[in-house]
């Protein structure tokens, strides 16, 4: 047992010494992630993209009265750059990136509506990014809704005004009906009843018009509104939201890269031949390597987390012991992936390529910036085979929700880690055996 510990210690000491001999590497490993998060926060402030917009109307002078609402919509996503009469000129500006949107106002819009037809806005953009296109489509939808609402409100206000005149007429009619009621000869109950009914109808119509006029036009047009509130009642900045995912992705990548280069380099150098002859086993080698990297990366994770939480003020609502457990299991499993790469690669270059591919896969499939629920279900198998997917979900839960890690995710990640350890052990054993 004592010799077992000594043999394990050979790798712990060797790997740590080799890493610590590169102070610049350590500095980059600690400051790199911190700087990335800091710059990310700086680069993405809490606001949506504002779209510079040119309106096109064949006759800009016609945009008077009701139509003025089209260009004066109070939408923070749209900045009015003016009205052009030439669609062609507006599109040239769009192509030259002098504007973001061109909205072509339909000709004779009001007449079209009066003719019981929808007037069509044409919205031009020059985007290729599907997410930006989606954003512009949403902005355009909201814009048209607001235009519709604005016009509706204007019509409603006009209706309320007209209703005032109608009410005066009704009051006069009611007064006349009352006079008529007085003039009905006694005994002519039929006429008396008809006049009374008429009076009632007129009064009801008057009251309803009163109600109609008393309501604000905006309430009439938008009777319902929605207010979204998160359970935690906190709105996170992009940096705060992405911080746990960035930490996970960085730790996974560092672990994979370190481990991926570790065994492949030894295989290339020829020292594996010495291990084959020496009394050291594959199990001792693997344990030694796991422990050395785990120790180093736990310290590294601690420093990165401390900088994120205390310098960048990334929220940490959960318990530190949960955080530490998730980071440990994430590192263990990621190291397993790295050692697997190391054992199946023939060269350093191959190992680095595989690690980079895994990083790319993690960015796209781990829920780093695309919600996993948007993913086609069979593809989620790929997502859940990446340690980062588990790590991101668990750290977001702990740091942003103040909850503990879902046990199924923790156990799932641990299971993958143990499975990888066993596979690596068998592969290394095969390589170290005759």
């Amino acid at each position: 047992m004592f010799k077992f510990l000594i043999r394990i210690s050979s790798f712990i000491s060797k790997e740590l010494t080799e890493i610590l001999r590169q102070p610049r590497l350590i500095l980059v490993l600690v400051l790199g992630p911190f700087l990335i998060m800091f710059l990310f926060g700086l680069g993405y402030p809490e606001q949506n993209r504002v779209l510079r917009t040119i309106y096109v109307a064949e006759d800009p002078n016609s945009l008077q009265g009701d139509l003025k609402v089209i260009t004066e919509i109070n939408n923070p996503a749209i900045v009015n750059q003016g009205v052009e009469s030439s669609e062609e000129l507006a599109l040239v500006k769009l192509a030259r990136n002098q504007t973001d949107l061109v909205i072509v106002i339909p000709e004779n819009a009001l007449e079209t509506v009066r003719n019981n037809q929808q007037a069509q806005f044409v919205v031009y953009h020059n985007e290729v990014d599907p997410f930006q296109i989606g954003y512009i489509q949403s902005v355009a939808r909201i814009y048209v809704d607001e235009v519709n609402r604005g016009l509706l409100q204007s019509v409603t206000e006009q209706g309320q005004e007209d209703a005032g005149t109608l009410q005066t007429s009704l009051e006069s009619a009611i007064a006349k009906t009352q006079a008529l009621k007085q003039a009905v000869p006694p005994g002519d109950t039929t006429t008396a009843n008809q006049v009374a009914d008429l009076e009632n109808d007129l009064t009801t119509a008057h009251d309803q018009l009163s109600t109609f006029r008393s309501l604000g036009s905006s309430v009439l047009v938008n009777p319902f509104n929605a207010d979204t509130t998160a359970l935690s009642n906190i709105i996170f900045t992009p940096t705060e939201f992405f911080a746990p995912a960035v930490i996970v992705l960085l730790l996974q990548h560092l672990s994979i890269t370190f481990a991926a280069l570790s065994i492949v380099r030894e295989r290339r150098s020829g020292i594996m031949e010495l291990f084959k002859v020496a009394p050291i086993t594959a199990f001792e080698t693997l344990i030694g390597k796991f422990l050395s990297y785990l120790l180093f990366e736990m310290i590294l994770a601690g420093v990165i987390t401390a900088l994120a939480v205390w310098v960048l003020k990334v929220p940490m609502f959960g318990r530190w012991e949960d955080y530490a457990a998730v980071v440990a299991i994430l590192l263990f499993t990621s190291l397993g992936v790295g050692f697997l790469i190391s054992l199946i690669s023939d060269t350093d270059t191959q190992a680095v390529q595989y690690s980079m591919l895994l990083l790319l896969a993690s960015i796209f499939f781990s829920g780093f910036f695309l919600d996993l629920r948007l993913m086609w279900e069979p593809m989620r198998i790929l997502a859940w085979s990446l340690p980062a997917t588990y790590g991101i979900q668990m750290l977001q839960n702990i740091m942003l929700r103040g909850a503990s890690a879902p046990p199924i995710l923790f156990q799932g990640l641990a299971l993958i880690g143990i499975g990888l350890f066993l596979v690596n052990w068998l592969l290394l054993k095969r390589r170290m055996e005759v």
Partner: protein
Amino acid sequence: MNFTKNKNLTGDVVDAQALTKTFGQEVAVDSLTLKVPRGAIFGFIGPSGCGKTTTIRMLTGVHSPTSGQVSVLGKDPTRFSKADREKIGYLIQNFVLYPNLTVWENLNFAASFYGVSLFRGRRLNKLLEFVELKEDKGKLAGALSGGMQRRLSLAATLVHNPELLFLDEPTAGIDPLLRRKFWDYFKELQSEGHTLFVTTQYVGEAAYCDLVGVMYAGRLLMVETPDNLRKKAFGGEIVRIQTAEVISYENRNNLERLPFVQGKILVMNDQEIEVIVDEASTAMTQLVEACNGEGLTIETIEEILPPFDDVFVRLIEREDDNV
């Protein structure tokens, strides 16, 4: 310094019988049979690519033989236990230690993976002293010269005090002075009771060995002492005679008829010949008498020890002729 506890043991530490290793269609080692006695320096000599490293790999358990039997320290190397492995030291042909670690750290690493006790500082220092690297223990291995790296590798091979050392071309690529120093180390290790199995392509190094195995094209041509190797190469020992008079054809014919003279006499010039005899020390007196009988006055007579390079070339030529 005393490395081994088994100084007085005898017997063979390596016993290989008809050992063959093939890689696909290529026969790397063909039916090799040899025995290495305990406490000996066994030189394994042959040109590059002749199968020396493959043989060493089979003896250390890195490769399993395709056929044949091998026993090292009484065990099949492919079934070595940890305890068996602790008795073996293996110096790989290339420098395989870590260039980013210092001399001391590399040695410490080797000591750890061999399971050497943590109270080993004195021992490591002694080893560094032995290979003359004590002053350089803080240097990075990558910054050492080729010769220093070889010495560090040797120290790492000795770190667990192995009984049997397999040294694969320990002197390859280093200057003659350092090569000489290495053989001094090996002699010292032998005197302390270690058995050394040393491969080399420097034929001249055969002189330092107790036994020499000559390997060529995957086959072990012979295992002999260095002296016997010379005899086998030339058919006996060589005596060079210089006379005051011209040595005639008749003189040579008469000398060739002597019972202890082997084969034809080699004429160096009119007054100088080389004679191959069974045993130079006894034959020289008889040759002096025979020459006097022929009326020849001997000016000098001496035993010639041809360099092992010539011995090796002669052996290979004979082997090629046989094939």
